[in-house]
């Protein structure tokens, strides 16, 4: 079962992004759906009384961490663990803007120069590491330089490829100069840093093997909780750091309990063994909701599913791509009953999408994109216009080729399995033969996704920051095997629009560019964008927070949003 989650998370796209001036937002994206089900759940976690200090928060996790060293974090579990023990240079506010919160290392928002190429980071002078050393510009410079060094082999290296130089201005100021304007960079620096005084003498190629990040006693941190224990495949323990420099958290102890089985994980939530579960399988949501004291947060997370088409003729029989025309792809989009999939497979925990922007986010072009409602007649009409005629077996034929293709997904992912089955039926209704094929995830990545060898795939992107930039997955600059545009999609207009989109830091201007992207991409359809989704979060009755500190699932790590302010009701 864990393949399911890994498959989603490993496929996380390293998008990097930026939002700028707060006042320019025209919508407040996160208000569009109520959090939890407060009207029917009298016992929600929203506060009725005042915060108390102490107590233990037990969080269930589906897999163990790999390393909590911020230089090497790639998987969700390690990121979750790091969230508790590391402060970030900047944090995100509820709307997804970069902010210098009281618990952020920076004292104010990054200062961006007139030409948009220079970012000045100002640190708080009060921040300290858990060994008493101050957090200084040296730590920031060391961290960024390490990520940029190919010998270190940090997964974050590509995020820094537009950086020209990094300089220490004084003990608490760092200046980063970019080679070109790159608006998403603001989110790149909203990250955790490592202590230079601990790691500076380690050879770059030895950093991965260093015990920093795997041995709690050697992991010097700067966050509200410090790491006290790691029992592999069992649990991790964090305790409030008495010497923490920022606003003290209420919760004294945080335990990550690792569960091998999702069903057991949910039962542990029901029994009260755990207080917070990040991922309740959709099939169990109803059962959990029936237990009224558990607060179920249904809002989808920062990830979306799509059907990706391949545009490289070498991958097809007779080099014939059945969906080579926009019309044929639009017909596929019309033929799919996406709302039905959201209602029945996702049990209502998803939102339809028509472009690669999360619904309600600032870049969401809204009505500017083409909306593909479920309309089989329209699909048939488009296919007829495109020159397809029904063959003897009911499948459409053009120039002697049948409209048939294979859709790959990872074996063991029950959501994709069900969605693929619905798709197969939907497409058959309009005369298209689609064959679903489940493949073991690691083999799939190696043999199909990385080299870009498939006809069509059902896959997801998880967005690790709220910026709308999607160049690295849609631009023809990023063809396989080195890039993530595994479908060999090429659209010169879009290639340019993506560049335009990140080449200005003016959010209004960017918004217009992404509206243009949305229009083009929803017409040309390199993907059929399916839905934003996410597994519901479950919060037990002991956990309390003020309304303003409620979880924000659409943000990365949003299930822990403002957790410093949460408390445990020990009554």
């Amino acid at each position: 079962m864990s393949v399911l989650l890994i498959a989603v998370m490993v496929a996380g796209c390293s998008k990097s992004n930026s939002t700028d001036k707060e006042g320019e937002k025209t919508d407040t994206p996160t208000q569009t759906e109520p959090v939890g089900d407060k009207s029917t759940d009298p016992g929600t976690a929203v506060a009725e009384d005042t915060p108390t200090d102490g107590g233990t928060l037990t969080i269930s996790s589906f897999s163990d961490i790999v390393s909590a060293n911020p230089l090497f974090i790639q998987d969700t579990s390690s990121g979750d663990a790091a969230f508790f023990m590391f402060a970030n240079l900047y944090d995100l506010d509820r709307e997804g803007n970069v902010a210098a919160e009281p618990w952020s290392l920076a004292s104010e928002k990054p200062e961006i120069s007139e030409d948009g190429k220079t970012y000045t980071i100002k640190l708080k002078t009060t921040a300290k590491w858990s060994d008493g050393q101050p957090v200084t510009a040296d730590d920031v410079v060391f961290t960024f330089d390490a990520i940029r060094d190919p010998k270190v082999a940090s997964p974050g290296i590509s995020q820094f490829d537009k950086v020209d130089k990094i300089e220490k201005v004084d003990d608490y100021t760092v200046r980063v100069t970019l080679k070109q304007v790159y608006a998403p960079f603001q989110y790149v620096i909203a990250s955790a840093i490592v202590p230079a005084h601990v790691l500076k003498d380690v050879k770059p190629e030895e950093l991965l093997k260093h015990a920093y990040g795997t041995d709690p006693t050697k992991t010097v941190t700067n966050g509200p909780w410090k790491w006290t224990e790691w029992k592999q495949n069992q649990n991790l323990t964090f305790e409030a750091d008495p010497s923490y420099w920022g606003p003290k958290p209420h919760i004294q102890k945080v335990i990550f309990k690792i569960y091998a089985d999702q069903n057991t994980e949910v039962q542990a939530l029901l029994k009260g063994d755990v207080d917070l579960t990040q991922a309740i399988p959709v099939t169990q949501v109803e059962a959990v909701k029936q237990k009224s004291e558990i607060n179920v947060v249904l809002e989808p997370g920062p990830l979306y599913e799509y059907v990706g088409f391949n545009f490289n003729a070498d991958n097809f029989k007779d080099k014939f791509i059945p969906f080579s025309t926009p019309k044929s792809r639009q017909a596929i989009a019309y033929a799919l009953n996406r709302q039905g999939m959201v209602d029945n497979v996702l049990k209502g925990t998803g939102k339809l999408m028509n472009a690669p922007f999360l619904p309600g986010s600032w870049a969401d072009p809204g009505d500017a994109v083409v909306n593909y409602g479920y309309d089989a007649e329209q699909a048939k009409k488009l296919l007829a216009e495109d020159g397809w005629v029904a063959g003897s077996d009911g499948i459409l034929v053009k120039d002697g080729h049948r409209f048939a293709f294979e859709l790959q997904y990872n074996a063991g992912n029950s959501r994709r399995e069900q969605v693929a089955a619905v798709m197969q039926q939907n497409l058959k209704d309009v005369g298209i033969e689609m064959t679903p094929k489940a493949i073991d995830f690691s083999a799939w990545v190696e043999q199909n996704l990385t080299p870009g060898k498939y006809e069509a795939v059902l896959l997801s992107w998880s967005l690790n920051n709220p910026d709308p930039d999607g160049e690295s997955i849609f631009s023809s600059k990023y063809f396989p095997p080195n890039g993530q545009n595994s479908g060999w999609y090429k659209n010169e207009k879009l290639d340019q629009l993506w560049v335009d989109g990140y080449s200005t830091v003016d959010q209004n201007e960017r918004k217009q560019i992404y509206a243009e992207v949305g229009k083009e991409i929803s017409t040309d359809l390199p993907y059929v964008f399916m839905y934003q989704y996410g597994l519901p979060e479950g919060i037990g009755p002991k956990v309390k927070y003020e309304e303003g500190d409620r979880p924000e699932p659409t943000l990365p790590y949003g299930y822990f949003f403002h957790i410093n302010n949460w408390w445990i009701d020990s009554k």
Partner: protein
Amino acid sequence: MTEYLIRRFIQSLFVMFLISIVTFALIHAAPGGPTKIFLSPGLSQEAAKVQAHNLGLDRPLPEQYVKWLGNLIQGDLGYTFKNHLPVADILWPTVGHTIVLMGTAWFLSMLIAIPWGIYNSTKEYGWSDQSASFISYIGFAMPTFWFGILLQELFALKLDWLPLSDMWTIEKEGQIGDLLLHLVLPVSVLTLGFLAGYVKYARTSMLEVLEQDYIRTARAKGVRESRVIYRHALRNALIPIITIIGLDLPILVSGAALTENVFNWPGMGRLFVEMALAREYSVLMAITIVTAVLVIIGNFIADLLYALVDPRVQLGRKGGTAA
């Protein structure tokens, strides 16, 4: 005897060597094998290459194998690829946890199954025999993890008598009482599974022996029935049972992945599944090797036990049991 032991030992070494080659080759041939471990759509190819190089994964396979084998012989199981933790530190605790769980279930099931099977063989088709059959059917037919979920639902959630999962309550780690409480449900599941087989083996094996001529002779001589059963029949009936036990020994350590998953028991079966998903090949190879050693030891112990229960068995003789 000594000669037998030495010969057996050398044979075992050779088998181990073959197993190590096959394991190593298979794992490296698998898609997504060690050299591709860092290739994920999230990580740049260049970073993946550097990491693979730092770990020596870009060296020729025979060279990697020799290095791995050399370390293994010195007792060094190597390190995990992704976070450089000693494999031994991850593996050995889980072996202990699994032995506690499986050992308890196995011992308990033998304790029940063998006397019960013997008793049932003397009262064929009696109510005790019938109920043993019934329990066996259930034990064979019901998937263990499903039975586990049922027990959890009833005893941990509805009645709230027992803990749901894990080996200890986190604050009570190391307390025997807490461990026993946590053992009840998983041990029940596993015991039922073992019991189903053992009670049948014990009964069948006894029945076979009881039909033999020498039993009839003993009875005809007027030997007491209890002496016939426990002295004459049991000794002979135990031989096939010991074979089964010997074959089952490695399970005590390799664990029951499904049961361990459902009860979140930090054992080796669960470790194997998790490490397979994480593609931590050094751990997988270590588990395979450890299991192989146990299979060999298990068979060896079974051989020694044959000799113990049946003096006619002479180890090392061709043909084995000829007296």
